[in-house]
């Protein structure tokens, strides 16, 4: 009889890595090599996570500061003076230029540093080797470099916050000429330079990470882990990495050309400009060109942020509904389709920029097509819940929250993708509501779900469930209260990135809604401290986790509670089945992990699966003499 206890077999690869096993190369060196310049994917994942959490707090705090301005325009902000100094005017108001810098940095931090690096960096790194059955990433060294480029990039971006002229202030999309001309706004001086340098390093980090993820997924899957047996998380990370690899270099080129325009007198994006009393010599450039380049990354970026979150929640929802994810292949197909389409919809951000209207028609068609695979994903999530046996762990709650945001925020894309309707809605709060729900909050919830779900694997301890649930409810309701009212404000035409609306009669209303939004934003930010406490407390004093606390099927739960370098103390388990055999009819328990062969579960095998038993021995996993 075959045995499930594959990991008790002695190590075939000799990559045994207990700290006290001194019989081979030392991975558990001193503090520096273990925690700082580590090449272990799990440590790197935690580094990304902690850095991401730092950025998320900072990004959230910046948003609360500008929400104070928008919700309470008459409030005296003198009490912020110790922190913001000269950015608070003598009248106790926020400086309008600093307001723009806050908006810009909030966007940059959240999109790139939290939801790209913090999310993909954490979970791609942590889960890819563990879920496909690999000892580590294809290149541990490149992986380490990826984090340290991100770290340097973070330091530079953080430094820019303390400049005399303030950080970049032209919006996170940094459209030139505003971002190219220091005469136009203070933030376009040193702040913008640091922004560009930081982003260039960030892109390097992303590419180093992405190449690693792709290589690892293609080459390092354990025996039996065919592509069609990969968990949806891995599919999501795989597509994300490919999208990033193809689109980030385009942002790099845009940044590079902008650096040329700013520093070396070229005219890629500048033409016919008269500013600060003089006509600039630049002619022939086009600001629209920059927008094309920017959104060629910018739109795929939305999916770079979103797909990992969708992957994480697919896994968490299946596990906690105790059901196979509905339409596994349709989920992969829709992600693939979304991934491809994400490259040919970018100009829907540009319907009213003066771009040729015919181009607008084409992009409108392509954009609304992308709604179809997105809708399929939502329907599949909902059907997975149907007749499930749902455990509301914090991870599950956040995943359900994600689906809800994905629906609420995604569906308003039907208006914005329609160029005729976008004329009115473009750059209003309707857009703000749309992308904060579908991209910001949905991805953020995916990230939170991932942290709660994989915390036991990361730190060997459980997070407090009750606190996690309280965190979820305050955040879930808070996020809806922040972003749902913005739809009304947007339909009323309120433009975004406005310091105040009092100059306009048309936009004089909604003081009440804006106040509600700001209060909800403060409450939501405050609730994150519950998470912070829970997170750090549980690292040290949380309940010790069992090896597979969620009764999950995927391979990472076959590792010991405290995973060492190399992940499995013995041989890497082989894989015999897909990861979603939950509540299989006839099975003893309501889950059958991936490493259990069909030969051991004759009671629950489906007709086709009995035939696969014959093949199992040829997988090399079960020694021939035992058969």
């Amino acid at each position, binding site marked *: 009889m075959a045995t499930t206890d594959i990991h008790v077999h002695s190590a075939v690869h000799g990559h045994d890595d207990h700290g006290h096993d001194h019989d081979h190369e030392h991975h558990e060196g001193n503090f520096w090599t273990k925690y700082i310049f580590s090449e272990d994917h799990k440590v790197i994942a935690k580094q990304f996570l902690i850095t991401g959490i730092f950025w998320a707090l900072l990004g959230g705090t910046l948003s609360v500061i500008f929400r104070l301005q928008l919700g309470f325009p008459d409030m005296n902000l003198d*009490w912020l003076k110790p922190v913001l100094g000269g950015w608070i005017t003598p009248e106790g108001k926020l400086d*309008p*230029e600093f307001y723009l810098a806050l908006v810009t940095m909030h966007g940059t931090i959240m999109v790139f540093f939290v939801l790209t690096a913090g999310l993909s960096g954490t979970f791609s790194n942590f889960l890819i080797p563990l879920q496909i059955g690999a000892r580590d990433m294809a290149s541990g060294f490149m992986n380490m470099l990826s984090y340290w480029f991100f770290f340097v990039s973070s330091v530079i971006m953080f430094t820019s916050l303390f400049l005399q002229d303030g950080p970049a202030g032209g919006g996170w999309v940094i*459209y030139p*000429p505003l971002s190219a*001309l220091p005469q*136009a*706004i203070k933030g376009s001086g040193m702040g913008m330079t640091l922004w560009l340098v930081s982003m260039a390093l960030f892109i390097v980090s992303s590419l180093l990470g992405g190449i690693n993820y792709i290589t690892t997924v293609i080459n390092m899957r354990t025996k039996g882990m065919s592509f069609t047996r990969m968990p949806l998380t891995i599919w999501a990370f795989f597509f994300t990495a490919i999208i990033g690899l193809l689109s980030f270099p385009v942002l790099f080129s845009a940044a590079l050309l902008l650096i040329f325009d700013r520093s070396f007198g070229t005219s890629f994006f500048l033409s*016919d*400009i*008269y*500013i600060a009393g003089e006509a600039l010599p630049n002619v*022939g450039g086009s*600001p*629209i060109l920059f927008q094309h380049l920017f959104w060629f990354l910018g739109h795929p970026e939305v999916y770079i942020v979103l797909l990992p979150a969708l992957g994480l929640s697919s896994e968490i929802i299946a596990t906690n509904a*105790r*059901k196979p994810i*509905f*339409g596994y292949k349709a989920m992969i197909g829709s992600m693939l389709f979304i991934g491809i389409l994400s490259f040919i919809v970018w100009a829907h951000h540009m319907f*009213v*920029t*003066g771009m040729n*209207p015919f181009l607008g028609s084409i992009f409108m*068609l392509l954009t*609304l097509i992308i709604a*179809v695979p997105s809708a399929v994903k*939502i329907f*599949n999530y909902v059907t997975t819940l149907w*007749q*499930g*046996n*749902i*455990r*509301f762990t914090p991870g599950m709650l956040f995943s359900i929250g994600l689906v809800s945001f994905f*629906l609420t925020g995604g569906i308003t894309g*039907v208006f914005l993708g*329609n*160029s*005729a*309707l976008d*004329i*009115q809605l473009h*750059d*209003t709060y309707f857009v703000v509501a749309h992308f904060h729900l579908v991209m910001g909050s949905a991805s953020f919830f995916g990230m939170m779900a991932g942290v709660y779900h994989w915390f036991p694997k990361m730190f060997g301890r459980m997070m407090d469930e*009750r606190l996690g649930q309280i965190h979820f*409810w305050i955040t*879930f309701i808070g996020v809806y209260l922040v972003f749902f009212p913005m739809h*009304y404000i947007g339909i009323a*035409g309120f*433009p975004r*990135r*406005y310091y105040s*609306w009092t*100059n*306009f009669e048309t*936009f004089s*209303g*909604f003081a009440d809604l804006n106040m509600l939004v700001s209060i909800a934003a403060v409450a939501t930010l405050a609730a994150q401290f519950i998470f912070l406490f829970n997170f750090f407390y549980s690292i040290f004093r949380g309940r010790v986790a069992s090896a597979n606390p969620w009764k999950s099927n995927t391979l990472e739960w076959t590792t010991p509670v405290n995973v060492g370098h190399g992940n499995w103390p013995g041989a890497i388990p082989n894989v015999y089945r897909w990861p*979603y055999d939950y509540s299989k*009819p006839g099975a003893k328990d309501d889950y059958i992990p991936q490493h259990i062969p069909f030969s051991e579960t004759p009671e629950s095998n489906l007709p086709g699966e009995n035939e696969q038993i014959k093949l199992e021995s040829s997988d090399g996993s079960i020694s021939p003499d035992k058969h």
Partner: protein
Amino acid sequence: MMSLIIGIGVVLVLTIFYLIFRVSRLVGIAKGKDPDRVSSSNGVHGNLFMLFMIGGLVAFFWYSWAHFDEYTLPVASIHGAETDMLFWVSMAVVVAAFVIITIIMFVFTYQYKYDENRKAKFYPDNHYLELAWTIIPAVVLSLLIFTGLKSWNEITSPASAEAEVVELVGQQFAWTARYPGIKDNQLGTVNYRLIDNYGNEFGLDLSDKNSFDDFKSLELHIPAGKEILLKIRAKDVLHSVFLPHFRVKMDAVPGMPTNFKFTATKTTAQMREETGNPNFNYEMACTEVCGRGHFSMKMAVVVHTQDEFEEWKKTQEAWLKQNPTYLEKVPAGLREAAMISAGIPVESLSTSAQSVNQAISVN
């Protein structure tokens, strides 16, 4: 002192929270309650989702209904009425889909809470279902796309030759309008290198005779019932023309003139009557972030009847008349034509014109 008390208060409250957390945790451990599969309060969250869904939907429909007039702007253009119609049709489709899916999802979370004695249904796929919910959204979306495309194509089609042309120029942080003048009804050519700080804010090229009667306005005046073609440009950075009541938006791009055509349907006076607000004014805003004063880049907009509009135009002085020193930039041969065109009395200025001529010939 006050902040110290607040600080101490906060610390106290946090300490109390922490103690509650510790005590409940220790009690849990003492009870030996180490939940195997689900915690005892698992079902609560299914109920909470149900409550949230009902509360949320009620609030959504109530607010949308009760405050409809607050968040909808009256529409005052032909294409705006059309796109508004399309907006509300899309809204009906979207809200229907949203409500149905939301209800189904949260009912499921309520209905299928964990029960130890029940096993979930093993239901990995169903091709008919998947096909259905791929095709239905695709069909609905294509219907919306095609109506949208039709409007978009009409909106962006070239303006008619009779359209009333107005040039809008964005700069940090103000809008200026230039009208082609009543004599030739043609906008003169401009060149950004001719812009100066002394008056030629448009960069008017005075060797072009079309520029002589152009006039400037700091308010946008347009007639109702006649097609208007906005020619839009920017001097320094990106700006965006936003006329919310007319559903008009188009970026102003340095180096790349853009345009937008529309027909206003209601004069300011009519709108004042319709809204019951005697102080109602149309406004134009900037919707592309352009720097410190972005939020204050307002231009007043006045919609006249066509007759009033013609009258108003007649009262406007040509730019050249307001800035007679620029006459010297006009080629000598065209100077008299320029004065006539700009409405400058030729006799009264002949002396100064002569002196200009002399100055030029000396050079």
